[in-house]
């Protein structure tokens, strides 16, 4: 029993409540909102330390024993995700201070961000499939509101798509849960794992499992379910887009990894090639589509898709090395991707547009911004010694070990195209001769914008240069996922 696991849900909820009661005052909202997320980050680190030293942590809510009540479980994978989520939340919330309009900050931004984090954290922690659905809904509901806040025509266009796709995904997810319950008679993930693994007819479940696959692929923006993402992400202010890019799709990926390592592992000859190909096509389509864009936000949005493909490829390999690579890549990607969006926000602040054809001369006049762009961009492109390189290497090694030549080859090639897109941004936006007046081109960026970007850039470097502890951690997390006996034992107790 450890009530600690509840804190990632309770803290944001309490924060939301206080914020609702104290709405209208910007500074109060900022302090409470950001303070709440900072507290969550602390809690997440604490949970991670506990899980890392004492093994998987479990709490049976309401003291009801495992398959009957709702269980919260923290294994290494989920505690890593918790930390990263809180980190991105914190960084984007700080970044939001000077960038989100006052009106939003006074009323809705901070409660919504906290509510979304509540959903995300709940999703990472819960050990119950229906409860997972509920957290998904908390998360997407908050994201709906965050996304539609602006109210421009473009935002409406994106919002409608985003809402429609996510609702379809939610309903398919819910249908899958109903079918799963009807067939296996339980909702607890560990119990499901046990029952499905022990069942002879488990392959019968595959057709309902397909609903989960489609639902999570929609959330994760996997091919061919990604269309909503480039339509909607670029329409929000960058603090929100960066927040989304770091978390929303990754929760879908998290669910895919959880479901397809814990219980849908029977028919491997079917599932894992499917995942592998979905991953492969996703990364290729995403990166090729990104290459043709000239809007910074859209280039970056399409790249999200491509990098989701990488992660799913790691899952599809279904080896310890592959899943470790997927986890590492996910952590790296959340940090680096959010950061590139934040830098795009800086560029917007300086140039007033995201259109690369109109942006120029940043390299000459804003070397710091250039540096801050280069680090996450090279990270994304997988250039050593930044974090993306280690992630790419892990996945390539895993792919070759599993003798998946084509997919791994595609993964390598995708790295090249990613580099191309990043260099394109650099060539056009940074290197091109400034079209305006150089002398007056010396705007100051607020410290609250620079600090989060710099911190995330530092993490991108550290993840690469001091990769060993992280890689080793991902390996252990992957072991826990591939062999879920410790997970099942922690949830259901020794007697199972």
């Amino acid at each position, binding site marked *: 029993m450890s009530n600690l696991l509840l804190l990632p849900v309770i803290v944001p909820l309490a924060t939301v409540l206080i914020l609702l009661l104290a709405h209208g005052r910007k500074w109060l909202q900022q302090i409470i909102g950001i303070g709440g997320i900072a507290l969550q980050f602390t809690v997440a680190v604490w949970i991670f330390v506990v899980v890392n030293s004492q093994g998987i942590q479990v709490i049976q809510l309401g003291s009801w024993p495992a398959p009957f009540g709702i269980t919260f479980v923290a294994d290494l994978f989920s505690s890593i995700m918790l930390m990263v989520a809180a980190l991105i939340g914190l960084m984007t919330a700080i970044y939001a201070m000077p960038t989100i309009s006052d009106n939003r900050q006074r009323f809705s931004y901070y409660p919504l961000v906290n509510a979304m984090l509540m959903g995300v954290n709940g999703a990472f922690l819960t050990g119950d499939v229906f409860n997972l659905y509920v957290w998904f809904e908390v998360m997407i509901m908050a994201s709906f509101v965050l996304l539609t806040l602006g109210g*421009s025509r473009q935002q409406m*266009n994106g919002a409608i798509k985003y809402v429609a796709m996510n*609702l379809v995904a939610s*309903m398919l997810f819910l249908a899958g849960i109903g079918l799963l319950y*009807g067939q296996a008679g339980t909702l607890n993930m560990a119990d499901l794992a046990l029952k499905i693994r022990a069942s002879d007819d488990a392959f019968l479940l595959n057709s309902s499992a397909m609903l989960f696959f489609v639902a999570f692929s929609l959330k994760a923006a996997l091919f061919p379910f990604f269309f909503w993402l480039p339509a909607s992400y670029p329409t929000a202010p960058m603090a929100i887009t960066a927040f989304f890019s770091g978390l929303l799709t990754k929760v879908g990926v998290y669910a895919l990894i959880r479901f397809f390592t814990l219980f849908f592992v029977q028919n491997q000859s079917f599932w894992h090639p499917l995942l592998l190909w979905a991953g492969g096509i996703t990364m290729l389509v995403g990166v090729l589509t990104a290459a043709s864009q000239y809007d910074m936000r859209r280039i970056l949005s399409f790249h999200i898709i491509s990098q989701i493909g990488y992660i799913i490829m790691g899952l599809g390999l279904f080896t310890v090395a592959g899943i470790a690579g997927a986890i590492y890549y996910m952590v790296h990607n959340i940090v680096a991707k959010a950061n590139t969006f934040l830098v795009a926000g800086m560029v917007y602040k300086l140039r007033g547009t995201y259109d690369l054809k109109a942006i120029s001369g940043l390299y000459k006049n804003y070397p710091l911004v250039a540096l801050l762009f280069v680090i996450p961009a090279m990270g994304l492109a997988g250039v050593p010694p930044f974090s993306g390189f280690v992630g790419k290497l892990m996945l390539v090694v895993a792919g070759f070990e599993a003798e998946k030549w084509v997919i791994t080859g595609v993964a390598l090639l995708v790295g090249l195209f990613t580099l191309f897109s990043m260099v394109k941004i650099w060539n056009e936006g940074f290197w091109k001769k400034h079209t305006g007046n150089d002398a007056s081109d010396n705007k100051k960026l607020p410290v609250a914008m620079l600090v989060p970007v710099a911190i995330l850039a530092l993490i991108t470097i550290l993840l690469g240069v001091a990769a060993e502890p992280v890689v080793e951690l991902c390996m252990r997390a992957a072991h826990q996922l591939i062999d879920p006996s410790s997970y099942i034992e922690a949830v259901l107790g020794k007697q199972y």
Partner: protein
Amino acid sequence: MGLILSILTGVLYAAAIYLLLRRSIVKMILGIIFLGNATNVLVFVSGGLTKASPAFIAEGQQVAAEHIADPLPQALILTAIVISFGIIAFSLALMYRFYKITGTDDLDDVTEEDEV
């Protein structure tokens, strides 16, 4: 009964999908509502259907009688209905705002922003 309710599920889903594929935003939201209903029925059906007494423990008894309806799917659907209600209310407000801003209820009219 399973068969009839299954057919009902199928019809509801088909209706939902057909409506979702319309250009009018009103129809799209109708589709979302149908999708929610269809899913609730599906969960209800797959939870196992037996003609049984409601899931109550009779006065004076400690445990429920033998043949009660499975209460868990009911609770799940109840939760799902309430969540759907919230989301649909939001979608309706979104529909309103969409019309106010774009001046149209035709979703095909607002595609240009997707391209650059």
